[in-house]
């Protein structure tokens, strides 16, 4: 019907738009986050259609998997929207949706017209990547770009993830020490049915192997540290909900795992500023980085549980007793 677009893409695109609407339109948080989960699945299909297996894997693992799971978790554990203030209630409740729809349609039409015009004038260029691939020691182009040619981007990106872990831990109780921010990790998990329990204990090792395979397959095929880290984080989450005692491991190793990858990556980069990494260094960096990514994502998951709330009467440190404050700092 339309030009050169295969029908599969047409269906997928319409499905994508429909699931976007299912995500943004409902009022309930649970429906929205489930919509995002569905959108993640369809997006993964779209990446596959566009021919990028790596991006599809990353989307399935990190975007669709871990992220949507986190958001579903949030929407389940705090489903109620905060009661809107009476003063802030809009005079015409239908106005916002109507304005929103109209402006969205207008923006889409304008943006689409601009895009199509701009796209037609784009010149073609050759990706001159293959010539240098034999220098890298890895065969897969995307891994080559991520870890060899543009390793510096990956370094900063893993630092972003590490600092996210640090930031969410800083939002918990305490600020230094091995268990700061981890109070939620020590609280008991809700009970789950025993059948599910066993299912999880059987699935987890399989997932673990999948994670390892993704890590080492990355040098020759699609996969790599980020996808593998997401799968390993999923293993940890599953084990924790199956009441496997992870507290000691978490308290003792979460922070170290979080920073180890970045530290080793920086040291390797400082040594190799003007020469490519050797393959063993590359492998060590990638393994530690995977652990760091898993640790960062797991820290986010753990921090979603609020610490026990503070006493509002003591919320302001200024109003506290000076003697106790003195002991505090």
């Amino acid at each position: 019907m339309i030009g050169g677009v295969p029908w599969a893409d047409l269906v997928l695109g319409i499905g994508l738009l429909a699931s976007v609407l299912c995500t943004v339109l409902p009022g309930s948080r649970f429906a929205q986050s489930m919509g995002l989960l569905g959108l993640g699945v369809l997006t993964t299909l779209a990446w596959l259609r566009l021919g990028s297996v790596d991006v599809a894997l990353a989307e399935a693992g990190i975007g669709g998997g871990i992220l949507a799971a986190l958001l579903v978790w949030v929407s389940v554990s705090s489903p109620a929207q905060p009661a809107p203030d009476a003063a802030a209630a809009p005079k015409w409740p239908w106005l916002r949706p109507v304005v929103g729809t109209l402006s969205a349609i207008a923006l889409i039409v304008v943006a689409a017209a601009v895009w199509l015009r701009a796209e037609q004038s784009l010149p073609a260029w050759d990706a001159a990547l293959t010539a240098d691939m034999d220098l890298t020691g890895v065969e897969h182009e995307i891994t080559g770009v991520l870890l060899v040619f543009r390793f510096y981007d990956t370094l900063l990106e893993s630092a972003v993830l590490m600092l996210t872990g640090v930031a969410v831990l800083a939002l918990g109780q305490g600020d230094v020490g091995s268990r700061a921010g981890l109070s939620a990790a020590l609280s008991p998990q809700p009970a789950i049915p025993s059948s599910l329990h066993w299912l999880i204990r059987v699935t987890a090792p399989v997932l673990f192997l999948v994670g390892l395979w993704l890590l080492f397959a990355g040098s020759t095929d699609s996969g790599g540290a980020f996808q593998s880290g997401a799968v390993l984080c999923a293993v940890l989450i599953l084990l924790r909900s199956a009441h496997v005692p992870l507290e000691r491991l978490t308290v003792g190793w979460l922070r170290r795992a979080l920073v180890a990858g970045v530290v080793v990556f920086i040291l390797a980069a400082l040594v190799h500023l003007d020469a490519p990494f050797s393959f063993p260094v590359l492998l060590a960096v990638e393994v530690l980085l995977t652990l760091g990514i898993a640790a960062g994502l797991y820290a986010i998951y753990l921090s979603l549980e609020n610490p026990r709330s503070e006493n509002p009467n003591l919320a302001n440190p200024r109003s506290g007793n000076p003697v106790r404050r003195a002991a505090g700092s």
Partner: protein
Amino acid sequence: MMLAQWALSMGAVELTQMQWYLLVGTAIAVIGLVRMLLTRDLLARLIALNVTGIGSLMIILALAARTAESGDATGGTEAAGSGIDPVLSALVITGLVITVAFTGLGAVLIRRIEGAQDAERAHTLDDVHDPERSGDAGDRE
């Protein structure tokens, strides 16, 4: 669909696969953006932000797929993995991870904000201590 027909009729454009995904990505990004600006619920905003992110990444990956289309004129648009620009793909993976990092921080912030609001409300409503506490209701006193 209507959009594509409109584009077809307006510009007499022969849509390619890449242009189709470009349009879909644009629509997704715009819908997410508008929803994000209009909603008041914090989690809905965060989810809309993610939708916007997915749309933007789809635009970029559609641009990446353009190499595959223009690279080999033999009609290899369906070829998986071989033609797509690895640099842009790597950029999309980076963007994906960074979006996840920000969303994670945002989700934790939302939990904290609402936990604090709940605690405040519980304190103003009743000063009686709740004798039983379930596993995840640690945010209530």
